[in-house]
């Protein structure tokens, strides 16, 4: 494996104060330098991305009086993909008096992450969770209410308390619109300058410090440089490396990957979350996958035919020729096992040739029993909107035919490495939300992504960034500075290169092939042999891309094929690092399952002795093997145990 990476010096978080975990956030806020309000207007911050993390951060920094430039690739900041989150947002409010506390949310998150996250960060997340709900309610987010007018909550996977606040099945939309409205208020106030239809293509680093970005105006093609005293990346996750995922079509890794190439370490890239209940692919043309809420597993029963090759309609298969495999394998949790376990079990039965639907890539989620038990009306009341959504996409009615579901890539826990201040290894470059690696370890719990995005954007970053900005304003950087000129020409050279290949394959065809490869070898189950095969093939495919891609048109126009091609080029580089990371981590943990590391009955087996660390990767230069820096994970407040759902 030595030829694939080298190992460098260990790394550690220097920012979290010592002492009792519950006092660390207070201590850090007190220890950090402040910027006096009159000086804030002399300081500028660039925020890339306008999802929950970026939108809330830009709005809050604007309210504090900093000069903010906010960037998104969509036509409006309101469209960022946080908007698609369905279920809810966790908070340790204990409004139910059911034994919830900051300590319990902290514990659940560390355990859910399979003991691969940093204690200090997760504890702080649990601490600020309650403030998030207060903030969102004050903004007018229409959360679900009880008859008495107070907030309603529900339970979510992997926990025993009811701490999930929600707005029907559209919680992400409502929270994002809250952040968006706060952001637009700051735009109106002149505190935030908004750049829509702009894509960050390079980071500008001067004397080792992040000073700005190069962005392309996606309407005119103009390559712009923007400089500031600090840069914040809130550009989301990289699930689209798999081509098919529940991410929006435009989601990409370019902003974080460009920063990685400029010196920011990339942590745990192999940690991806695969959601068990998505609508299966219907054919070659498929462009994305749609999630069906996890809540369906409360009443739906998952099964496949007992024997492979059974092509009868589901209704014609008698009870004793069905295999309700989750109930059989996990009698105590049954259909409600955690996401990673349910996903892998579905893959296993399909690998055995017992999958259903086109290509045999699907399992039944059957509501017949629930309809008999509860009545059709009660089922419609609970799941009606989801059933409609399913029918719209598949043309099948779940009241009469069982749903077909299959796992799909949903979220990426890995991301740029950050310290307790959410600062990357490049001073002045901060990373928030899904784009960083910080809080979810090897597996994220349901309803925790929204919590982390808003915690980072509203409460953590605005406090920690002042300690950095207090040293500013930094010397002004002109457009003619050599680092700015170099960053800009790196971008224009790359665009010219993409446009000049003039090969015979479309960008999407390469992306599909890369995605299929990653799904096969770096998806739900990974092996030494498969990952090595994948790395070889990724390298070949990348070479084929640079000699065979056809990008029509020119730079100086709205050119969607060019946008895609640039993103795919970065996905190729990320894909290789993901495979190297997955290959080096020979244990199984959370969403990362190595076939070689399982218990006798086929469950994920962690290796705490050798792998209780964050793998932070350094980019050493093109063609050089990446350098691994380990951050040791120490657990002082939770005891590490092996998860079991039998």
């Amino acid at each position, binding site marked *: 494996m030595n030829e694939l990476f080298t190992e460098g010096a260990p790394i550690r978080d220097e920012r979290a104060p010592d002492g009792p975990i519950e006092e660390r956030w207070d201590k850090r806020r007190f220890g950090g330098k402040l910027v006096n309000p009159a000086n804030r207007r002399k300081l500028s911050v660039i925020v890339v991305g306008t999802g929950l993390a970026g939108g809330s951060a830009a709005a*809050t920094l604007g*309210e504090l009086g900093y000069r903010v430039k906010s960037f998104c690739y*969509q*036509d*409006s*900041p*309101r*469209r*960022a*993909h946080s*908007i*698609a989150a369905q279920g809810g947002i966790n908070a340790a*409010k204990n409004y139910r008096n059911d034994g919830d506390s900051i300590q319990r949310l902290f514990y659940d998150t560390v355990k859910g992450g399979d003991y691969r996250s940093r204690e200090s960060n997760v504890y702080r997340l649990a601490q600020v969770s309650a*403030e998030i*709900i*207060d*903030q*969102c*309610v*004050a*903004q*007018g987010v*229409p*959360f679900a*209410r*009880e*008859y008495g*007018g*107070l*907030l309603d909550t529900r339970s979510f996977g992997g926990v025993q308390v009811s701490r999930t606040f929600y707005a029907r099945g559209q919680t992400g*939309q409502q929270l994002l619109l809250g952040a968006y*409205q*706060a952001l*637009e*208020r700051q*735009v*109106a106030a002149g505190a935030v300058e*908004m750049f*829509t239809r702009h894509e960050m293509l390079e980071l500008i680093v001067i004397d080792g410090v992040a000073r700005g970005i190069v962005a392309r105006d996606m*309407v005119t093609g103009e390559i712009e440089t923007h400089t500031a005293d600090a840069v914040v990346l809130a550009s989301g996750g990289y699930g689209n490396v798999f081509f098919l995922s529940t991410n*929006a*079509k435009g989601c990409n890794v370019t902003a974080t990957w460009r920063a990685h190439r400029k010196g920011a370490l990339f942590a745990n890239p192999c940690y991806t979350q695969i959601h068990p209940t998505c609508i299966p692919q*219907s*054919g070659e*043309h*498929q*462009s*994305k996958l749609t*999630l069906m809420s996890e809540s369906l597993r409360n009443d739906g029963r998952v099964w496949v035919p007992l024997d492979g090759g059974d092509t009868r309609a589901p209704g014609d298969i008698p009870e004793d020729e069905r295999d309700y495999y989750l109930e059989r394998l996990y009698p105590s949790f049954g259909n409600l096992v955690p996401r990673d376990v349910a996903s892998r079990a579905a893959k296993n039965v399909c690998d055995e040739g017992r999958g259903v639907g086109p290509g045999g890539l699907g399992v039944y989620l059957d509501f017949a029993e629930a309809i008999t038990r509860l009545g059709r009306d009660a089922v419609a009341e609970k799941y009606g909107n989801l059933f409609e*959504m399913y029918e*719209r996409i*598949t*043309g099948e009615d779940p009241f009469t035919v069982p749903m077909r579901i299959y796992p799909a890539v949903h979220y990426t826990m890995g991301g740029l490495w950050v310290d307790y201040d959410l600062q990357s290894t490049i001073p002045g470059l901060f990373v928030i939300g899904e784009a960083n690696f910080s809080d979810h370890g090897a597996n994220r719990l349901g309803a925790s992504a929204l919590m982390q995005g808003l915690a980072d954007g509203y*409460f953590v970053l605005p406090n920690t960034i002042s300690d950095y900005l207090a040293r500013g304003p930094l010397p002004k950087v002109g457009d003619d500075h050599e680092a700015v000129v170099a960053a800009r020409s790196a971008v224009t050279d790359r665009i010219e290169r993409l446009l000049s290949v003039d090969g015979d394959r*479309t960008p999407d*065809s390469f992306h599909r092939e890369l995605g299929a490869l990653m799904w096969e070898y770096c998806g739900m189950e990974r092996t030494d042999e498969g990952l090595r095969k994948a790395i070889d093939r990724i390298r070949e495919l990348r070479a084929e891309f640079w000699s065979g891609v056809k990008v*029509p048109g020119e730079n100086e*126009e*709205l050119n969607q*094929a060019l946008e895609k091609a640039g993103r795919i080029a970065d996905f190729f580089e990320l894909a290789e690092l993901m495979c190297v990371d997955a290959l080096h981590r020979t244990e199984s943990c959370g969403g990362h399952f190595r076939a070689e590391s399982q218990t006798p009955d086929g469950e994920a087996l962690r290796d705490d002795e050798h792998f209780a660390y964050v793998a932070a990767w350094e980019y050493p230069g093109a063609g050089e093997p990446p350098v691994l820096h380990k951050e040791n994970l120490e657990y002082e407040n939770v005891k590490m145990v092996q998860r079991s759902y039998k």
Partner: protein
Amino acid sequence: MKLTLKVWRQKDAADKGRMVPYELGDVSPDMSFLEMLDVLNEKLILDGEDPVAFDHDCREGICGMCSLVIDGTPHGPQQATTTCQLHMRHFEDGDVITIEPWRAAAFPVIKDLVVDRSSFDRIIQAGGYVSAPTGSAPDAAAIPVPRADAHDAFDAATCIGCGACVAACPNASAMLFTAAKVTHLGLLPQGQPERYDRVTSMVAQMDAEGFGGCTNTGECTAVCPKGIPLETISRLNADLLRAATRG
């Protein structure tokens, strides 16, 4: 199935634009409408032609980025469905389908089927928010909201800002979009302090952007993929009247 597509092609804002016919075979009924356009674009790229530009992102009916007037109807023939969720099984083999951009003075065409909807953002900037700076919030349970109000506020708040209402309106009015936000915030206790300034400023901005006036034709709500009710417009008008008379 085989289709004939008549697609609006316009190189840039300055170009006059025209309908261009394309023949497309091998369309599967399981494809979404946008996946069908993906197939067309793959073909155009390989033929050395310029692919058709269209806006899209989440492809699950919630981000509001996709648009398209399909056979004369914004978001196409299926009710309460965005273009990205419309599937080809609703069309027949041999169909001729026309595809055009949103058309409104306040939504200028950028290229092909892509329009500039930043006017919507500016309407929100004019007052579509509650002024609640981060950190200033009381405990969430301190503001009870009657369940029915929370329910109605939520219904209005589900607007995805796609602009179909404008595209369908004979006056190209943005009344339904504006009214949805006025209703969402106006129904909640948190929205009361700014309620009347909000409606006045947002309507003024709507006019300044060049959107037309509302004449209650109701086309907007008929095409709205989220079913925002016409009643929100009555609420807006009532608040506007109240704002004018309270001085």
